[in-house]
């Protein structure tokens, strides 16, 4: 695999930031976009634009077909059973809110329990918190150990007859922990408890097979998978989408509207109210094609090699501490430098056009557990190289120099 060739497909890397070559290490936040995706947005708006599913004219028929093609590609990409199980949303956050809201409305009563973990992003905690506020549900947190791994035996102990759903991330956006979600789903299903997997970070880094996982719900953000912003995906088993009530109401999601009665559209339209991000969904098909052209196996092995290289190099720098040491780790490395706050690290690295993220990364529960206010985070995409890691390490040395560290 030729990374330089892949990198050249991303127009942003031909731009200079602060007069320097961009070293983009913030892909867990959002990935950069290949030209094919950007061009598809452009060409759709220029030559093909129309809304979908509403009109008879040629443009609308074409747009509707193209929109449907992306749905088919997503189905194949995550190995779903049918395209009815693929719902387009705004992002993974909306996907999780959709499940929390509709599942909660139908299945959660006072005292019922929702089991999540200490690794969760706020987007897989706050939507469930609404059920705690509005329905009197109880939220339990499966603990992590010092390495940043979820302790499965402890998670199992927290399951009881009141547990109504388990929501867990597939890959931590802080420690890079790859969570054994299949094992958790097996445990949950033996007790007839459905599982939602937050796949926001895993979708760009791992092979996703929802059939193999047997998860009930899987949430993805398109913009982290080399796609446009404004596209999210909710995979849900058909039985849930048939059984649960609709989420948002409006045009497109109805079958018949009378003054005294409304019936809803079939799947997947039942969950896609109003005008959808048409151009973005259509362009997202190019993101999937891009991922497939690289090959998930190649992507996984490239990022693993890069992560190991970075971990080795970072460990040799005085006063750098890596956060967590999970058994299985993907291309996300959070660290601290003794004596330098992560915000200062990020500002100083930016001077060298090294883009990282600093803060709590929307994981305050996890940072509280780690007894850290904030961390600096490096996250990789397919376009990163060992040279990027070398520039990062030099920039960190500069950071130590600014702060007069020995």
């Amino acid at each position, binding site marked *: 695999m030729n990374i330089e060739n892949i990198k050249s497909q991303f127009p942003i890397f031909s731009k200079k930031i602060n007069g320097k070559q961009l070293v983009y290490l913030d892909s867990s936040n959002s990935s950069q976009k290949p030209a094919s995706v950007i061009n598809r947005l452009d060409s759709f708006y220029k030559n093909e634009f129309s809304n979908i599913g509403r009109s008879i004219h040629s443009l609308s028929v074409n747009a509707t077909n193209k929109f449907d093609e992306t749905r088919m590609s997503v189905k194949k990409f995550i190995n779903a059973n049918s395209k009815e199980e693929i719902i387009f949303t705004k992002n993974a956050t909306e996907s999780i809110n959709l499940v929390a809201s509709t599942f909660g409305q139908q299945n959660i009563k006072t005292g019922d329990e929702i089991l999540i973990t200490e690794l969760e992003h706020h987007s897989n905690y706050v939507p469930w918190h609404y059920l705690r506020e509005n329905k009197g549900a109880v939220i339990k947190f499966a603990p992590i150990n010092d390495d940043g791994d979820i302790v499965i035996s402890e998670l199992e102990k927290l399951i009881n007859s009141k547990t109504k759903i388990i929501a867990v991330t597939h890959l931590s956006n802080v420690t890079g922990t790859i969570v054994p979600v299949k094992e958790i789903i097996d445990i949950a299903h033996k007790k007839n408890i459905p599982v939602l997997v937050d796949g926001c970070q895993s979708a760009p880094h791992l092979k996703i097979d929802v059939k193999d996982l047997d998860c009930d719900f899987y949430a993805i953000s398109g913009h982290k998978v080399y796609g446009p912003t404004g596209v999210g995906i909710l995979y849900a088993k058909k039985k849930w989408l048939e059984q649960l009530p609709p989420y948002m109401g409006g045009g497109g999601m109805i079958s018949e509207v009378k003054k005294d009665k409304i019936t809803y559209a079939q799947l997947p339209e039942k969950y896609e109210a109003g005008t959808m991000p048409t151009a973005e969904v259509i362009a997202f098909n190019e993101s999937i094609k891009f991922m497939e052209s690289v090959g998930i196996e190649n992507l996984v092995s490239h990022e693993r090699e890069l992560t190991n290289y970075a971990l080795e190099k970072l460990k040799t720098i005085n006063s750098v501490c890596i956060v967590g040491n999970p058994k299985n780790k993907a291309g996300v490395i959070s660290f601290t430098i003794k*004596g*330098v*706050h*992560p*915000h*200062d690290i990020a*500002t*100083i690295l930016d*001077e060298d056009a090294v883009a990282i993220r*600093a*803060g*709590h990364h929307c994981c*305050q529960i996890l*940072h509280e557990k780690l007894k850290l*206010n*904030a961390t600096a985070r490096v996250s990789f995409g397919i376009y990163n190289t060992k040279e990027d890691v070398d520039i990062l390490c030099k920039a960190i040395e500069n950071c130590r120099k*600014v*702060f*007069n560290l020995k």
Partner: protein
Amino acid sequence: MDLKELYQDIILEHGKSPRNYGKCLGYNHNAIGHNPLCGDQVHVYLKLNQKKMVEELTFEGSGCAISIASTSIMTELVKGKSFQTAKKIVAEFLSMIKTGSKIATKDLNEDQKIKIMSLSGVKQYPMRVKCATLSWHTLVSAMDKKIDDVNTEVVD
């Protein structure tokens, strides 16, 4: 933009060894400030005496070099000032950070002006302005005895 303008020695020094850290005895005003972007927090303790003079001003909290240094310098400059003068210094500081205006007040001596102006480089780093201003907003909140906590996403 030169990093040295942002991370001047005086800022690094105050960031590393902040003055007036801790809870002062006999404080009669206090407020907490949050920066939800990074999770940093500052707690300002203030003792206003009967003449409405800032007799004590201390803080507790964690944060980056910019925020700790800014808070430390604030406590040094505002301590011993009258209520009105303190308010004036805060207003001049916030205006310097936001608009780049000069520090004109006669209530600070030359040394103190150099200290407060060492933070002026922050204006060039929009993402860091909140780091520098949080504790100053929190001080105003403590002085005005506002009940709610200060949140950098709410104040401008």
